[in-house]
């Protein structure tokens, strides 16, 4: 189980629709999805609940990172936080709704910001999710590969990224003949999520 990716839990792969998708839609304002997301959190099997909680957590982590790299915390801290979070979840039946985000100081992203981010998180992977921490990043970096839907999400140097998408872009650019000058480095990515086809 990795706290890093909402896709890393296998639960979604057995469901017709991914609870993470419901959660994403819920945060985008779809009330019917909200019901389903909450049900997944309350009544889903263990894996489904873990996946949904993981997605919820991830959305906020993404928000933190996107707002400022200083808000990004080391993965260890996230894991600890998540562990505590789970304990509390187990202790009380919390109904998660977007407004709840402001209840916990840890989640500093206003609900509106979360809403825009949640949709993107569905892509699971293209982005940097955490890059804090130097040595502190070791626990996450030590897990070299996290299989995820939508591509292989790889943890490297404390980065989580969609290796598949990156490789497509790399191969594409190589096809030009690659004669020249090629800057590298962290790129900014804008992602627009297209609704998944109905299955």
């Amino acid at each position, binding site marked *: 189980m990795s706290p890093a990716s909402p896709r890393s839990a296998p639960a979604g792969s057995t469901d017709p629709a991914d609870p993470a998708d419901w959660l994403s839609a819920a945060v985008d304002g*779809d009330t019917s*999805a909200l019901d389903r997301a909450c049900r997944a959190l309350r009544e889903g099997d263990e894996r489904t609940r873990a996946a949904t909680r993981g997605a919820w957590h991830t959305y906020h982590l993404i928000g933190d990172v996107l707002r400022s790299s200083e808000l990004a915390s080391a993965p260890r801290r996230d894991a600890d936080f998540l562990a505590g979070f789970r304990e509390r979840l187990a202790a009380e039946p919390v109904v998660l709704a977007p407004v709840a985000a402001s209840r916990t100081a840890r989640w500093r992203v206003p609900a509106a910001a979360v809403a825009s981010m949640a*949709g993107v998180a569905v892509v699971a992977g293209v982005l940097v999710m955490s890059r804090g921490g130097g040595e502190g990043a070791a626990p996450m970096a030590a897990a070299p590969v996290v299989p995820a839907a939508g591509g292989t999400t790889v943890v*490297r140097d404390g980065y989580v990224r969609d290796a598949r998408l990156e490789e497509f872009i790399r191969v594409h650019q190589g096809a030009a003949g690659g004669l*020249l000058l*090629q800057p590298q480095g962290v790129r900014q990515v804008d992602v627009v999520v297209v609704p998944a086809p109905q299955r």
Partner: protein
Amino acid sequence: MAGAVMRRQAGPVGAARGAFRRAAQALAAVWLATLASPGWAQQPPATDLALPTAEARQWLARVQQAARNGNYEGTLVYSAGGQVTSSRVLHYRVGAQTYELLESMDGRRHRIVRLNDEVQTAWPGNQVAVVERRETLPAWGTTPQAVDPLALESYELRHEGASRVAGREAHVVRLQPRDMLRYAQRLWADVATGLMLRADVLAAAADARAELKTALESHAFSEIELGVKPRPEQVTQWLNKFDGYQVTRPHQQRTTLEAEGWALARPVKGFQLAGCLKRGMATAGDAGTVMQAVFTDGLTHVSVFVEPFQPERHRQELQAQRGATATLMARRGEHWVTVVGDVPLPTLRLFADALDRRP
């Protein structure tokens, strides 16, 4: 769910090589034109003068040639969406051999070593490397006339004056698209050698006269030495230095769209098929073979990747934008299509929609 737009960072990628090179192709011609018409060199013509095609072609050829045959060392700065990263670039031509080294200078360590068509990409941070052969597609032959005349059917070359980049005098030109299917580019070519010093990809503007304000991405030398003494050992010292690395060597094989059972039912204006490959992907292990068809308009290119649809892997259709490079992933029946290119997303959509299965 409404599509949400956001910015996120992605890791270092061996990326903008293509963009700069294409711009180099474009720039190549500018310089020749300067030679061809002395008046131009002495006294730049009025701004926004569209060059005659023949002259434009010469210009493009010269920039391309300078990029290919020059010996230079410099620092290349890439900026897009408020992010700036820089890379060290060494490029030597010794006889028929080309040596090239690109190293990221910030963020994750990333090194690309090229000896002619052999490309070795290494990420020292996590000890991963990809070794591949650069498949030279027909449209990118190695002869000077390889500047594709096709480009000037889709773009108009306009001289915009003179400027300085990295301490060197440069001609500024703009490649203005003749339609909305591609981006405009503004290029800075070294007056003395023709080498491209800076290239910006500009957001599309419907009106050719409209002020092009937004650069989607920019590559520029912040510092460069031209005509240096080649030091190929600086490049070759990294060749095959993979002790402890996990090295992937994806297979590649030429093929055709027809042989793979595909056709582009409706051609996308200005783009021609440059070549088609079957290739492995480092991230897919041995299992995954992907078809890559490359289309070019002479300046920029679009890759169409097709692979069998796998529900567990291909869950989410998506569109992504990184600098000028857009990516679109969509399902086509039993296949999964990924289209990548430095063109507006609607252009990628045209490719995805035009792809037809011909069993």
